């Protein structure tokens, strides 16, 4: 009876409550941002306002900084710092750590992972995490300067984990792509939003995980979600206004070049070809090189007869308008989820402008990056899904998925997942982390429903899987050295002029190898598996190596035997003792 009386009373009072609220000014009111109840200073030195495009082009001339995702537009992940070298790396010790344990519920609760490449500008570090986190840190001490968190919906469609690979910085701003498909520009001094744009459709299964790339006055980003049968795209926004300048789709629609590779019908509309790894850029040629993802559905190729351009490819485009100049397809008519998103490393050899690419399909490709012509391919891991002629590039398919299943190498995460290789101009070698895994590939016809995964079959990693780190001489395609590792290697490699290759292991060890021989010279147990982008920088003349540690990502694809590995969320920064 009390309830019955109470309800009309509330109803009668509601209009009054409404009046009170109508007067309400939006603001924090009694609320405080969670990070304001911390030691965060709230302000960072103004180091990014002077960071121009011209400085990004000349990033190699300021090795104290790590200015872009790969450290440099060329994607080499190489630093000319050599204070830490093969002779003294054994003395490397933690200088500081930064941790941010998860608070509350989180999308992808078992697979959120710390994957970023920290960016460093004149003593200030900008590093992003899972779940919309972004921190500005004192690069010398690890002190928290400011923190931003974008609210991430629990139901964000994520094929492979709640992750973010880093930020871009320029003209006073920090740019971050959130997993729910927004691009946010923040004031680099205080983390306040300058502009925010939505560019991915979570209702359609899209998301975003990559680090943006600033080229000239544009910030360029690529979509994720090929496992949901989306139509992948790359977008460019004006860095000052946030206005979208162009969008290019990686799968053509009727009337556009390449549509003839989709077998007629409307398969193109669900054709995948997302672009979830940051591209590289050649300022002289004014060309951006960007990898594209697998076609959709992943394993059922009969729904999309043809080579399925421009999926599992590299697209070279004009940064000003996104127009395609050339493309090269690593895996035509991909039916193994091999993608083609992996980094494109730009380097010169004998006066030639080349592009090196370790593909998920198990081959290292060398292209002439002026026009995309094939130079050489080298098998860098077990790969029996097909055969690629190493001198002509001709592809012969051997093991497409069947309805009952076919065992093929590599598995769906590839012989190398997204974590990047590197190139040392000092040794002249290209280096790569390797996953050795076999999977049982099956196809099955699937009715497409927007926002649901669109695999068209399945692939299960079976049997033993392990890892390797390998070095190749791109002049000959010959392997220079290889180190076998107990577990699949799924952290990016970092090359330094100290003749070192830094990376991390799934068991949590940060590790350094001799760049010339592969001999292990140093390791340090960080306590959680490493699936991130180590970087190096210096402050006040002291060199540091920063390695995010925090296990997760698409473990089912690249290391199902390590699903239970200890989770973490710490950034370790190492230096030599004073």
């Amino acid at each position, binding site marked *: 009876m009390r309830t019955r009386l109470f309800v009309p009373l509330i109803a009668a009072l509601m209009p009054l409550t409404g009046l009170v609220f109508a007067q309400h000014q939006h603001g924090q009111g009694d609320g405080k941002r*969670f990070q304001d109840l911390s030691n965060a200073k709230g302000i960072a030195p103004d180091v990014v306002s002077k960071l121009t495009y011209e400085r990004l082009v000349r990033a190699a001339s300021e090795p104290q900084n790590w200015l872009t995702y790969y450290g440099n537009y060329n994607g080499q992940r190489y630093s000319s710092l050599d204070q830490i070298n093969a002779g003294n790396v054994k003395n490397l010790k933690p200088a500081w750590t930064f941790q941010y344990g998860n608070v509350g*519920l989180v999308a992808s609760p078992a697979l959120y992972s710390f994957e970023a490449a920290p960016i460093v500008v004149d003593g200030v570090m900008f590093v992003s995490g899972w779940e919309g986190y972004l921190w500005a840190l004192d690069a010398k001490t690890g002190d928290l300067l400011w*923190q931003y968190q974008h*609210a991430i*919906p629990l139901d964000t469609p994520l094929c492979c984990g709640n992750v973010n690979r880093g930020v871009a910085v320029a003209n006073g701003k920090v740019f971050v792509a959130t997993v729910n*498909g927004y691009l946010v520009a923040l004031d680099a001094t205080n983390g306040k939003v300058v502009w925010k744009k939505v560019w991915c459709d979570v209702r359609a299964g899209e998301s975003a995980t990559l680090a943006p790339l600033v080229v000239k006055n544009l910030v360029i980003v690529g979509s994720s979600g090929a496992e949901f049968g989306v139509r992948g*795209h790359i977008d460019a926004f004006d860095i000052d206004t946030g206005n979208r300048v162009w969008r290019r789709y990686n799968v053509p629609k009727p009337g556009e070049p390449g549509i003839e590779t989709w077998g007629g019908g409307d398969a193109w*509309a669900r054709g995948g070809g997302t672009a979830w790894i940051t591209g590289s850029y050649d300022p002289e040629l004014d060309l951006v090189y960007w990898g594209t993802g697998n076609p959709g559905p992943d394993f059922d190729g009969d729904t999309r007869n043809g080579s399925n351009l421009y999926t599992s490819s590299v697209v070279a485009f004009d940064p000003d308008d996104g127009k395609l100049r050339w493309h090269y397809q690593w895996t035509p008519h991909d039916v193994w989820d091999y993608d083609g998103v992996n980094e494109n490393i730009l380097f010169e050899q004998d006066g030639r402008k080349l592009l090196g690419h370790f593909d998920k399909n198990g081959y290292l490709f060398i292209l002439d990056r002026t026009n995309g012509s094939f130079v050489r391919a080298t098998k860098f891991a077990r790969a029996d899904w097909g055969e690629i002629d190493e001198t002509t590039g001709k592809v012969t398919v051997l093991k497409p998925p069947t309805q009952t299943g076919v065992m093929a190498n590599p598995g769906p995460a590839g012989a190398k997942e997204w974590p990047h290789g590197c190139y040392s101009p000092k040794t002249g070698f290209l280096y790569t982390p390797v996953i050795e895994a076999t999977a049982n590939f099956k196809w099955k016809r699937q009715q497409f429903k927007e*926002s649901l995964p669109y695999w068209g079959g399945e692939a299960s990693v079976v049997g033993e899987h392990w890892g390797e780190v390998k070095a190749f001489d791109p002049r000959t395609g010959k392997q220079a050295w290889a180190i076998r590792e107990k577990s699949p290697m799924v952290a990016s490699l970092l090359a330094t002029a100290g003749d070192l290759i830094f990376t991390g292991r799934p068991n949590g060890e940060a590790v350094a190898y001799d760049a010339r021989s592969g001999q292990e010279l140093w390791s340090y147990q960080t306590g959680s598996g490493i699936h991130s982008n180590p970087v190096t920088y210096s402050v006040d003349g002291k060199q540091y190596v920063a390695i995010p540690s925090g296990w997760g990502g698409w473990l089912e694809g690249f290391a199902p035997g390590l699903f239970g590995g200890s989770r973490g969320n710490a950034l370790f920064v190492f230096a030599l003792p004073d």
Partner: protein
Amino acid sequence: MNTRTWLLPVAVFATIGLSAMSSAQTAVGELLRLLRPEVLRQLNNDVLRLVNFLPEVDGPNKAIIARLFAHGGLGHAKIQKDGSHRFSLRVPNGQFIFRPAIIVMGKAGKLDIDVKNEDEFSHHQILLPNNGGRMFMQFAPGETKKTTIELDGPGLYWFGCPVGNHAGRGMLGLILVLGETPDEAKLDRPRQKR
């Protein structure tokens, strides 16, 4: 029999779709989801018994310990003149729940929210999702506080009380932002089946 305790699990499970219920039960859940909490509370207990498919696990020892995850029902945020939303939450005395616990926003944007701690003895806090950083408020017994948060849409977010294990004992809630992704983010392709 406490009607609220009976009903709340039904509303929660129907809304967030976690239970492995039969199709008939799902239909009932869908029906209940359409009803406002005020209406649900006025239903006859016998009717509730008929539609409640989780009686055997709800409140086995008549205390907070070991009851089915407690919850405070669902409510829709009101739209204000400037297009933002507003909503009022209560923390009822001695129940360790937010009422309502599921807030529905019709679209993305700002939400003005006030929270009243009706608990006579317990301090409570709230962590709310918010672009820029979670919003935090703390309440002594009897206190009411208000703040504004901003959320993208569509999407489902959580909020909770970070005091002690209040969250584990029922003080977790959800904010559901309805609507489509803005047109500027839509894919250029024919409409697809969902």
